[in-house]
């Protein structure tokens, strides 16, 4: 069952992404105010959702599980590392798609308001996590330090989420997860938005799986190289 679901992950992701783009670009109506510019609503919010909650969330949870003795394992460390790498990609995509949307709607590519600035800071945190991993040679020390860092960096996520409520920002408030739980998008537009969230979430897990497999292969390759080096050294010693 697990193998089947893993095998279906890629094709299902592809189908949902295709459906999102088909609905978003051709089927859904334009917005009353933004016109066709609003079609980016089927990309940017979903990418941001993955960046902040799914990928960064996965890295944070895996880091917490690594720090807890009962669940500490190389698997958790690898998952945290791989999820954070994918998180960097999605954070970057969030900023880029937001910029592309902001230019014709707001009138600027970028604004230093609380939402955008705190999201940029999250990107810096994610890069710092990866830099921290390269700064330490000892595997356990590397895993622990980066896990602690991930947990501290995750404090920024609720700040980003609530920034549009706590402060006056150029970035608009939530469309789906509003403070008074009202949905500000309806009909086919809402359904397409929902499909986009599923599609990009599956895309994250597909990328995470691929990256994780690469990490496992790297570890196995390192072991093979080490074993070969040992055999070679022994041969040299015997001659």
């Amino acid at each position, binding site marked *: 069952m697990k193998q089947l679901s893993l095998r279906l992950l890629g094709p299902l992701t592809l189908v949902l992404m295709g459906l999102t783009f088909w609905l978003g670009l051709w089927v859904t109506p334009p917005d009353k105010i*933004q016109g066709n510019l609003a079609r980016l609503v089927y990309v940017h919010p979903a990418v941001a959702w993955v960046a902040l909650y799914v990928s960064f969330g996965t890295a944070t949870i895996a880091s917490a599980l690594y720090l807890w003795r009962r669940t500490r394992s190389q698997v958790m460390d690898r998952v945290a590392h791989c999820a954070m790498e994918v998180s960097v990609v999605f954070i970057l995509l969030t900023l880029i798609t937001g910029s592309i949307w902001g230019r014709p709607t707001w009138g*600027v590519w970028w604004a230093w308001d609380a939402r955008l600035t705190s999201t940029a800071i999250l990107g810096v945190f994610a890069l710092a996590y990866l830099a921290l991993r390269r700064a330490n040679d000892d595997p356990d020390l590397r895993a622990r330090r980066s896990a602690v860092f991930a947990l501290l960096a995750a404090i920024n996520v609720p700040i980003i989420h609530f920034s549009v409520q706590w402060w006056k920002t150029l970035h608009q408030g939530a469309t789906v997860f509003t403070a008074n739980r009202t949905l500000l998008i309806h009909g086919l537009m809402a359904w397409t938005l929902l499909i986009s969230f599923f599609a990009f979430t599956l895309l994250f897990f597909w990328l995470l799986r691929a990256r994780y497999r690469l990490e496992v292969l790297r570890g196995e390759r390192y072991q093979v190289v080490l074993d070969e080096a040992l055999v070679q*050294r022994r041969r040299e010693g015997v001659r």
Partner: protein
Amino acid sequence: MPDADAFDLTPVPAPPSKRRGRRRTIGVLVVLVLAVLALLSQGLLHSLNYFETIDQAMSARTTLGTSTIRLEGVVKPHTINRTSSGASFWMTGGKDEEVFVNAHGSPPQLFQASIPVVVVGHFTSSTSDRFDGTQILVKHTASYIAAHPKRVKAPNGTTR
């Protein structure tokens, strides 16, 4: 021939260089702090709020004077006058306070009546309600309404 097993050639792992790892970690953290401070210094440290509302600006006129601020309001209908250098219009706040804006530079694509905008500029004097703008930003809402949704028709057959 000496026995191969007598020679233990397994590489002995070097003791982890804690000092080097610690130095690199500190280096990363220092760069991180500098990067975050650099981001925060772009206006955020002065005020977490990106703009002042008209009502706030009007009540703080003596403090603001003619300093550059970002002023937020809604474009009053039937007041937009597009000029060769930009646009002029009246902007209303939450308590019906009004400010006349004379903005230079092309307004954004979504600029229109009844839309929230943020204008970068300054009041012409500490008592005037005229605002000289250098940039207009549109602050669109989070609502998405389909243009001409045909599935809903009025009894007389017209659609929204």
